């Protein structure tokens, strides 16, 4: 499988179809991987793919300092495919500029799990593949269980829970940096006239930051979990994201990242949207 991946990357670079391939390379131990940026065909052997490839590589597609003038090849797991679908939907770049090299891993994070090259080539085909590939596994069971526990609490108890979780936040913004959807050049957390979100790692600013971060991902988060894995304080950010994603699905029947041609749910509406909460 890895040879096919390298071969495809080599072709793309040799034929001049892309100026850069972004993929995974070997980290300092067998269980760690790093993103690699390949510009020459002879360097494609640096590419690897295994169950420990878990960063969301789509995060680099909106980085002006990394994106070349020409097209870029992206090693894309279902998570990257869905992220690219959202970014294209939000018109962050021309889809022609990103050539997806679809890959999938049966059980991410599990040693020796089977990985394969996906069949599709266009974004449309890969979206369908991603939807299919995700049906087989159930990464959400644990999250659903934890959501149920939290939802069973009173608001006061939940506030105390999040207060405790957010108290570890050091405001490093690793969650933001790891997320492909957090591409704003000027983030609300850095606005200071007025300052909406206090910047020191104190309870109020931590609460505002983590809640607003989750809200800004409404209808956009594809649930890759990169934010939670990047968090040095192990704050369960994936729970907040999952809650918002579920509300978007229940209220608007929408799941992010499976169709780049429909309007984003938070930038569109239906005149008959439910409104039982409005007096």
């Amino acid at each position, binding site marked *: 499988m890895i040879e096919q991946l390298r071969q495809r990357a080599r072709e793309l670079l040799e034929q001049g179809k892309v100026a850069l391939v972004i993929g995974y390379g070997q980290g300092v131990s067998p269980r760690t991987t790093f993103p690699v940026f390949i510009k020459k065909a002879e360097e494609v052997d640096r590419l690897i793919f295994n169950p420990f490839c878990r960063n969301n590589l789509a995060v680099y597609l909106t980085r002006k300092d990394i994106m070349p003038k020409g097209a870029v090849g992206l090693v894309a797991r279902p998570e990257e495919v869905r992220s690219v679908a959202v970014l294209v939907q939000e018109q962050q770049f021309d889809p022609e500029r990103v050539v997806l090299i679809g890959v999938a891993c049966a059980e991410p994070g599990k040693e020796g799990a089977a990985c394969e090259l996906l069949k599709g080539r266009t974004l449309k085909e890969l979206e369908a593949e991603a939807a299919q590939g995700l049906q087989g596994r159930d990464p959400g069971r644990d999250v659903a269980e934890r959501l149920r526990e939290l939802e069973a609490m009173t*608001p006061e108890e939940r*506030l*105390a829970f999040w207060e405790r979780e957010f108290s570890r936040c050091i405001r490093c913004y690793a969650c933001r940096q790891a997320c492909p959807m957090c591409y704003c050049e000027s983030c609300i957390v850095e606005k200071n006239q007025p300052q909406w979100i206090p910047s020191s790692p104190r309870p*109020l600013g931590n609460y505002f930051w983590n809640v607003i971060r989750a*809200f800004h991902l409404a*209808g956009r988060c594809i649930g890759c979990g990169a934010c939670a894995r990047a968090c040095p304080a192990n704050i369960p950010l994936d729970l*907040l994201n999952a809650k918002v994603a579920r509300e978007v699905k229940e209220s*608007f029947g929408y799941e992010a990242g499976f169709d780049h041609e429909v309007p984003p749910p938070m930038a569109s509406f239906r005149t008959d949207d439910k409104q039982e909460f409005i007096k």
Partner: protein
Amino acid sequence: MAATTAEFEPKIIAFVCNWCTYAGADLAGTSRLKYPANIRAIRLTCTGRIEPMFLLKAFQEGADAVLVSGCHPGDCHYTSGNYHARRRWTIFRKLLEFSGIDPRRVLFSWVSAAEGRKWSELIDEITAQVRELGPFTSFERIVKA
């Protein structure tokens, strides 16, 4: 709840749109309808202009509840600002609830320029409701920490 409900006067911040709810509140005034002075109305162009951060900021400044109110669906001065707002609040109030803010402190309504009475009755009702809930001490704890 330390303070007794008898002494407690809730502070409620209302974010209202210029074209419908503000005019509706104005009508309540010119019609000499009485309603509690617990509400502080902040006039904005449209409910679509109301940022989620506005609500959080109100809580930071000591609000016991917030109200967002604008034109009925179909009546928006800017055609669709209230429809966009409705989507936003559908999700945001659920997120706030999940993050520990009692949804009874986060309120929404449609009040038209002709609904002075609806406005005064609404304020009566929500003031009584928030008075019942008591001061938002759990959030104050976070603000002051």
